[in-house]
């Protein structure tokens, strides 16, 4: 069954929208907004509010009836292997399954001095309004910073009895990011620590599909939020304990 927006009657298709045009306020601006709305697929659009924002910009509030319809049943919903959990759920899963704090060691390795990604995920401040792993009561985070040797990561993993390792790579020349991630994995394998760890890599040049090739449990790409990583860790640790 096809649906369209519901304003105050079935199938009226009414939508409210607001936007700014980079032109001077006036009749020409108003007509431009109306024409734009028609091109967006709105029938009988109306400008209900128009306001100059300085000499160069105009703000509009508009209504229009969309001509488009969609069948909800025909939509395919892609699956992700882990569910996105809220802050309290992440903590609850860790508490119930692990019965102690989940210990996370994070580092930028190799020549990469850019801790932007690592800090976005780990530090309290987080990224884009999403708090980092340090914020989670159920996690204990060790942020080793930049240019950390794989051997130092192994040492820290042992000293802290880490449950998970996060390796970040931002800058890359000639696939250095892939090389550095493999170095860390090899060092952990050699030390006999790899199998008991959740090994996670991340950076703007990676895609999740690379996990198998790199020998990681999960790879996160550009724009990943800390809450996604937290949800993944909670899911992964509960899988391990159940298994």
């Amino acid at each position, binding site marked *: 069954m096809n649906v369209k927006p519901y304003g105050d009657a079935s199938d009226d298709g009414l939508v409210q929208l*607001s*936007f*700014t045009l980079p032109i001077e306020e006036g009749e020409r601006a108003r007509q431009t907004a109306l024409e734009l709305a028609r091109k967006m697929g709105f029938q009988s659009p109306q400008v209900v509010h128009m*306001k100059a*924002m*300085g*000499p*160069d*910009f105009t*703000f509009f509030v508009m209504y229009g009836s969309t001509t488009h319809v969609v069948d909800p049943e025909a939509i395919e919903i892609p699956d992700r292997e882990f569910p996105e959990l809220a802050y309290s759920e992440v903590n609850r899963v860790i508490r119930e399954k692990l019965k102690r704090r989940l210990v996370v060691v994070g580092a930028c390795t190799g020549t990469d001095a*850019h*801790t*932007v990604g690592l*800090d*976005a995920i780990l*530090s*309290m*401040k987080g*990224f*884009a*309004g999403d*708090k980092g792993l*340090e*914020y989670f009561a159920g996690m204990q985070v060790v*942020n080793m*910073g930049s240019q950390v040797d794989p051997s130092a990561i192994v040492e820290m993993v042992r000293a802290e009895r880490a449950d998970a390792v996060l390796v970040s790579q931002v800058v890359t020349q000639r696939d250095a990011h892939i090389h550095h991630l493999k170095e860390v994995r090899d060092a952990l394998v050699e030390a006999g620590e790899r199998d008991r760890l959740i090994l996670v890599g991340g950076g703007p040049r990676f895609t999740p599909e690379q996990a198998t090739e790199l020998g990681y449990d999960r790879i996160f790409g550009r724009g990943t939020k800390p809450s996604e990583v937290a949800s993944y860790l909670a899911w992964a640790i509960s899988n391990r304990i159940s298994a």
Partner: protein
Amino acid sequence: MSEFTRALGRLNIDKEALSECRELATEICGPIEDLATTHTTESIERACLRLVGVDGVIGAAVEGVPVPNLVVEKIKASVGLERGAMIPFFHAVESGCGDIGSEAIRIASGEREVSWPEDFDLDIAMERARREAAHAADLVASARTRREGVIGEVGEAPKPWFYEIVATGNIHEDIPQAQAAAREGCDIVAVIRSTGQSLLDYVPYGATTDGFAGTYATQENFRLMRAALDEVGAELGRYIRLTNYASGLCMPEIAALGAMERLDMMLNDCMYGIIFRDINMQRTFTDQHFSRMVNSLAGVIINTGEDNYLTTADAIESAHTVLASHFLNERLALAAGLPPEQMGLGHAFEIDPDVDDQIAMEIAHAQLIRECFPEAPLKYMPPTKHMTGNIFQGFLYDGMFNLVGALTGQDIMLLGMMTEGVHTPFLSDRDLALENASYVFRGASTLAGELRFDPGGDVERRAAQVLEECRQMLRKVAEIGMFAAIEAGMFADTVRTRDGGRGLDGVVGRADDYFNPVTELLTERTGAIG
């Protein structure tokens, strides 16, 4: 709109508790002041070099390493930093071509060895350093007179000041947005820094276009934005203030660059970097003392970061930690010669909107801080934590924040964006935020003057409770000491150790013959403790 007044004397607060909090803060900060005045850092030495005219980078734009960094590294590696960078640097200048800029480049590029002078050469180096330091101090102090000059020409903005943020990553894109915001009624523009800049141990160079969720703080970006705001200020007949972040590993250098380029406000907290950025506490405490002396002399209003506590901790349970931190920030500012009228103490409207009577509680918190710091230009931060994608509800929520700001006489209002947490603000989000704030402040200005609180009522009792909890917390901190308190996670529930975090390797104990006439003059002219 009636003239701005600070709403004072409306809450019956316990004067004895208030003075005890101040005494405790003085006691707590003593060891921090001792640390700051017996140590230097690489960033402090670099800031001093910048103030005497060292600038530029070696290498191509993106890969370029700042000359001040290279000079300090070479000095540290050859003669050490315990006695400061000034003597070996000016020895190189005096025994070389005499020109500061070109000799700095020679040292930076390795063409020129650094050495420690003896006898007559030492006297010459010291004399030159003193002369240049006097110019440096004059340069910092001139920020204030230059600012007063421009305000005299274009006119002062009436309070409260509406504060907005731009953050495109590209300075050339930031400029039209900042000018548009000013034309819509904004009085203060803050250019958010690129993610991670606080953790860089150098200041990037030149005009930049590639910031990530913000624009790099560079001297050239400061200069470009300052010129753009002066231009729009002249058009509007209202001085538009510019803000950046003297925080992170380069806190002293950013303060120095801000003074040179006449910034008006600086985020400059005594603890933010330690707690939220895992910067080493010795580094931060040493750097903040120096940067506050610069800000003091330059007439810069600092903004402290207590609002951040409430973005992580609960705004009701942790309200007293905000106040406690205000007393510490106040004490450390005074120790750095920064007067109350330049202390933009920060706090926030972050109580869960689902809690009953939260408006009364927000009023109690805001009014309590107003009463405790009557001369400070308080900076009030809008809701962020409980903002959702429901922008309509968010707009109302911001309106209530504005109302509480109007009723409690907050000087600096950071305007809430209804799209907070959704995306970086649209041009229209800022305009709507200004409409919201202008409506509320115009509509409630008389009301603010009429308002009194019921003696012994909810607002007064809540304020008394927060002040008492603050006193208890400061007593505890005083008992174990500030360093131990941070190690115990008493601030924002975050544990940081004395030797942990970033930047400790850049902290150097001052030798008995440490020589830095820039620091000396800043200390002398601000009345800071030295």
